[in-house]
């Protein structure tokens, strides 16, 4: 089922949590809403579910306007960060809940419900635990029960609010892989919220980067990592360094000195701006005559197969701190002066 969000605005006490947000979610897609806390990602998810009503704008399920449908009518599967299981019910009763609350006419017979519960338990790999109570399960198991419960109603869309947020790192990794497989097997349109970019980049077909109630960029993992379209996305996704620069006469200048790079397509053509580059996208320059960024190493540390150097570049009075990767055999001890140049970069107007 396609889901379209059209020009949604949502205010809480006059403060806009979402401001003119539009998003098209394709059928069968696994999409991540990624952003820092307060960016409005959870609000967007809850609006799609019908747990909040938009101040302005519409939400379409397929071609049908679902904006005024109640939560119950929307038929979405929702998984909460803290599971929200019914603690006085067994695992089996939890999963069966969505079926047993249906009106008498639409309710499947008892045996059928039992069969469905068995199937779902197998799907989430919890067969044999149907008689347990939520308190007797681990966090990862609880979250899978919550997922099975949401799947029981055969939802049109599966919505997950920070589904792995309350789990420890190892379980989180396992469940992440498991969710990907699960999605590929069942083919549900799935939207999940996360503030963990690694999770979003690894898991999602498309990532929606959000900040301050707006969508900054929508794209594949490669798009948002390699071709960020705003300073926010560049600094939010992955590691990056930024420097204030000006562009004059076809050259990027830092503190009025050329640094050996020229603006390219996608860069601003002239004026003041900010230069962004990733720590690994630099090359050391040994020839003192070639223009480059120059700075003194303040600390350097070994990180797995590379060495990371913290460098203060620029004039002594106004140093700018950047982090770059240097080859292991390069001289980069504290106090060394290094000259380097970004190989891939992007400038944004200041």
């Amino acid at each position, binding site marked *: 089922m396609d889901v379209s969000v059209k020009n949604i605005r949502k205010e809480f006490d006059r403060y806009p949590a979402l401001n003119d947000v539009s998003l098209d979610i394709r059928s069968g897609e696994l999409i991540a809403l990624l952003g820092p806390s307060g960016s409005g990602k959870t609000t967007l998810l809850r609006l799609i*579910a019908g747990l909040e009503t938009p101040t302005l704008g519409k939400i379409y399920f397929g071609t049908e306007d679902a904006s005024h449908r109640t*939560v119950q009518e929307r038929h979405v599967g*929702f998984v909460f960060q803290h599971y929200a299981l*019914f603690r*006085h019910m067994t695992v089996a009763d939890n999963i069966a*809940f969505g079926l047993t609350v249906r009106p008498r006419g639409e309710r499947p017979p008892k045996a059928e419900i039992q069969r469905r519960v068995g199937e779902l338990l197998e799907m989430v790999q919890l067969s044999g635990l149907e008689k347990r109570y*939520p*308190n007797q399960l681990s966090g990862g198991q609880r979250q899978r029960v*919550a997922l099975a419960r*949401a799947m029981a109603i055969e939802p049109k869309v599966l919505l997950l609010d920070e589904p792995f947020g309350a789990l420890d790192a190892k379980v989180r990794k396992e469940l992440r892989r498991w969710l990907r497989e699960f999605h590929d097997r069942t083919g549900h349109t799935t939207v999940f919220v996360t503030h963990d970019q690694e999770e979003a980049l690894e898991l999602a077909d498309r990532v929606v980067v959000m900040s301050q109630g707006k969508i900054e960029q929508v794209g594949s993992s490669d798009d948002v990592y390699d071709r960020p379209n705003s300073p926010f996305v560049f600094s939010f996704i992955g590691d990056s360094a930024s420097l204030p620069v000006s562009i004059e006469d076809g050259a990027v200048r830092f503190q009025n000195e050329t640094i050996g790079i020229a603006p390219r397509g996608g860069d601003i053509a002239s004026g003041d701006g900010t230069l962004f580059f990733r720590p690994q996208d630099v090359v050391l320059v040994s020839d003192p005559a070639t223009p480059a960024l120059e700075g003194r190493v303040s600390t350097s540390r070994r990180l797995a197969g590379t060495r990371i150097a913290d460098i203060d570049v620029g004039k002594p009075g106004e140093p700018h701190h950047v982090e770059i990767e240097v080859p292991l055999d390069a001289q980069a001890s504290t106090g060394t002066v290094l000259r380097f140049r970004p190989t891939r970069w992007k400038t944004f107007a200041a």
Partner: protein
Amino acid sequence: MTTSAAASGRWRLRQPSVIPGFGLTLGFSLAYLTLIILIPLAGLVWRSASLTGAEFLAILSDERTIKALEVSFGTAFVAALINVVFGVLVAWVIVRYEFPGRRIVDAIVDLPFALPTAVAGIALAALYAPNGWVGQVLNIFGIKAAFNPTGIVIALVFIGLPFVVRTVQPIMEEIDREVEEAAATLGANRFQTIRRVLLPGLAPAILTGFALAFARGVGEYGSVIFIAGNIPYVSEIAPLLIVIRLEEFNYGAATAIATIMLCLSFAMLLVINLIQTWNRRRYGHGA
């Protein structure tokens, strides 16, 4: 109470713990409970033991005693049931809705705790008597709400309400909104959510509130005697009968009735506590 001797593994009074003062606090609690509750109650039983078995049985099988006990436990039970329904409702309104004067409503709930019970009894009697404000209206419908067991129930409802509200309220405040939202996304309507998701979670607190209101109702004296009419065999409560026996200097009979009340109350509270424990076990809390 040395622990080394108990290490054989049978009954260990003391588990190693980082929380200090186990011996001191347990000792103090036991001494306190003994002084405040157990010694007076033991004195009561002791006094009634001065009766012979036959005398004791005679007092017990006395029609008037049996009726008084029936009235006391019956009205307390009905009042506690009524309080459960409306107490939960009041707690719900206080917890769930923001409205002007909510704090005042919250404070009013405690008034029955603070008011001298006799004052409550006189006020209720004046209101519900056939010529009182409420009594007049009820009279039109042929309902007599004072000087009969109905009057007793009204007084006990008044006295018992805060017990239910104050035990249910904190648990209700802790209900996770997400659980209700989860039920809604699964298609449950409001009524189903309350009946199948919220109430079962509140059940232990409601049961405790019921037990407290019931226990209070059984022992209530001051407010009841003004509105009950105190007609022997009809609306005479057991505590009143005890007082009557005392005034007759019939201490044996008074303590015998008291002992029976004590046993019945203890048995009922014990049963309620066992239900609670069973309930907790079932949902995997604690043990």
